[in-house]
């Protein structure tokens, strides 16, 4: 049992470190003029942040950290969409336009990507 807690603790800290690195790399490019990379976490049936503001040409990475499969689909017509994202799967897209999107598996899950003016 003790060993198990240790394993969980180690996994958790690895996750934290990885998440930290990810933030670090994106925040280090804040001052640069090139395209940036933003992350949306899918967890507990929500896209977080539910409104993400990016520059045209930025890359957004969606990570499914939930316990069930989701997808990322342009609202309402699925003009663009990811494949089904099983837990831990990732979807990457370059953003050229503001857009509302949803999960077509759970259509009550909605969020937005906005272009900076």
């Amino acid at each position, binding site marked *: 049992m003790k060993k*198990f807690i240790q394993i969980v603790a180690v996994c958790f800290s690895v996750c934290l470190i990885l998440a930290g690195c990810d933030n670090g790399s994106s925040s280090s490019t804040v001052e640069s003029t090139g395209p940036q990379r933003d992350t949306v976490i899918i967890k*507990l*049936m929500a896209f977080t942040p539910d409104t993400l503001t990016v520059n045209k040409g930025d890359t957004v990475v969606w990570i499914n950290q939930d*316990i*069930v*499969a989701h997808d990322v689909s342009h609202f309402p017509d699925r003009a663009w969409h990811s494949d089904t994202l099983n837990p831990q799967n990732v979807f990457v897209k370059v953003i050229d336009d503001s857009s509302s999107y949803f999960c077509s*598996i*759970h259509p*009550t899950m909605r969020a937005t990507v906005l272009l900076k003016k």
Partner: protein
Amino acid sequence: MKRMRKSMNWLAVTVALILFVPAAKAQSQNPLSDPEIASVAVTANQIDVDYGQLALKKSHNADIRKFAETMISDHKNIIQQATALAQRLHVTPKTNAMTQSLLNGETATMKTLKAKSGTAFDKAYAQNEAAYHEAVVGAVKTKLIPETQNAELKGLLQSVVPLLEHHTMMAKELASKF
């Protein structure tokens, strides 16, 4: 139409009674143990898988079939996680009065659903999904989570609440189309 609505209300009330009355009674008398909670959790999920499989067998409506496929996939996923966690924690699911009342409710609802076909089935399935999920969310929040001793099991139940709430909203939206 009026009779239909009446019968649907009756269905919702029955589902609520099956889940809540024993729950309320049991809560005041004896709280469930973790093995009993594991049994209730697995059973409640399996019942919705069963309803989904019936819908795939009976319905030709694309929206109903898509919803049923999501229910089967999501609830199977939760069963897997609950079973894996129970094994890891050496908790053996233990059948109890609440498991039994869930199963009795399933038998009654299955009988009602199987007797219907076409749009009448689709509507009854969607409305039962809304009522069933709402009742299960209530039971998870007010009984299962508070009575769970193990922190990980409690955590799993807590993480399932948003999923059940979205399923409820989806079912209500689906039902409104009929």
